[in-house]
């Protein structure tokens, strides 16, 4: 299976990346090179295999479970520090282009 230039445009839009035409062409070639080695995974019989999202669930015998922390505020307010690397800030708010006319 090969990707088409249309796939690249569609995915670039989903991924919020602006690609120049020559960049699109190079991207298409390289990704298709990669999918050349991906095809072998489709031939593997994985009937009944539970997908492994995470190594922790493969640590049999370790009895380790993923956990959620209590839903309480634990971090101090560091607004100024958190905003010091932002490109545009005004009165403690992150500025973005106008979204609603």
């Amino acid at each position: 299976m090969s990707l088409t230039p249309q796939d690249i445009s569609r995915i670039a839009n989903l991924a919020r990346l602006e690609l120049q035409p020559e960049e699109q062409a190079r991207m298409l070639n390289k990704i298709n090179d990669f999918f050349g080695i991906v095809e072998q995974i489709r031939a593997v019989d994985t009937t009944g295999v539970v997908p492994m999202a995470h190594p922790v669930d493969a640590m049999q015998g370790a009895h380790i479970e993923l956990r959620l922390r209590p839903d309480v505020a634990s971090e101090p307010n560091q607004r100024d520090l958190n905003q010091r690397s932002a490109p545009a800030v005004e009165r403690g708010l992150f500025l973005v282009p106008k979204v609603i006319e």
Partner: protein
Amino acid sequence: MTTLHDMSVAQLAQALQTKQVSAVEVATAFLARTGGNPHNAFLDIDSEVTLAQAQASDARIAAGTAGALEGVPIAHKDVFVTRDFATTAGSKILSGYRSPFDATVVQKLGASELGGAGMVSLGKVNCDEFAMGSANENSAYGAVTNPWDTSRVPGGSSGGSAAAVAARLAPAATGTDTGGSIRQPASFCGITGIKPTYGRASRYGMIAYASSLDQAGPMARTAEDCALLLSAMCGADLDRDSTSLDVPAENFSAKLGDSLAGLRIGIPKEFFGEGLAADVRTAIDAALKTLEAEGAKLVPITLPRTELAIPVYYIIAPAEASSNLSRFDGVKFGHRAKDYTDLVSMYKKTRAEGFGEEVKRRIMTGAYVLSHGYYDAYYLQAQKIRRMIADDFQRAFAECDVIAGPVAPTVAWKLGNNASDPLADYLADIFTLPASLAGLPGMSVPVGFGADNMPVGMQLIGNYLQEARLLNVAHQYQLHTDFHNAKPEGV
């Protein structure tokens, strides 16, 4: 006393604690070496910050409140966020970024009044952009050169860490390993590095590439040093990292002296096939003979899905990356494009300008395999094979205690060699990817030299939480060999 920059972490800690040398003297000696930035290993150096930390260390030593590694210098890979140094993850999109906090690993190694080991930070070291690469050529701030031959790559993605330690610019460095990014540069630069079991070291403050794979670990010259550093870095961080393992802290130095008599070393036949360069194989075979002479037994095993680890990894890691890197949008931190028409165009132009080619490629690949119609065929199928790969290891560990083989199929290649062929870099990750996918601990130990006098690393893989065993094997090997003490010409 040995020259300061030739001393190991253990030796420096000892000299500092017995007041043979001060932390300021040690820091000054290393700052003199990092001046001019040899090998382009560093991305941020600030002698004032380093010397202030060293003075604080000297005060703690004088007051008798020193941490375990008080005053010993370390360099941090630039994917760990730091309050006192800039953090870029090797990317233009984070240029000038200053984190409001230190990553847990940085904190655990740092000032002892915050519960750390008391190490002094020499600054931040170069890496592939967002840790995506196997040669450190994907850094937005230029490639790092290999101290053994400056026309060659240092490996990646922790290439700055490996080059800094090999060139004696730092006695130790932190690294991160997603698909081999500690083990492979350690191998290419002739140093020792360990990636612990997934979940051992906190990921809090480690800029995420692929969250189900990313793991921090130490890089230094000896297994003894790695054990000291790993003991300080690991530990449960239950409130801040949902995948942090709830297991007690461990002293990884405790078993270094154990005998290897009766140790069963699994030799996976898939790691010794025709893809393995003859010079690497010769060095690995000799190392295995040394271990046999210490009483270990070699056991043939099979990891039949080794080759499949490449497509499986390069589906899963980009899928996770495409999600993790969505936070870089020009709003909250870092770079923002100058010209745009609306919010979406600001996102698109910011990301187009801020990300390098390999990062864009992985975001695209990831978004594709997660997209409607392809999710089951690629992403879910890869996760199923990931399970089979993890199961293969458990079958192997029924017959052996540790697994040994090469870290990489060849020694370090020439800079620019794979520039037009990213797939060649992917294929060279074949021996490190399986343990990464399973979440197992793995390490690289220098075992000699191959073609053109370039270092060769042997990989040791252990079962979950068996880091102490790996460090024990590596330490016993280093007691009987001298490759870890070899240094590049002119260093």
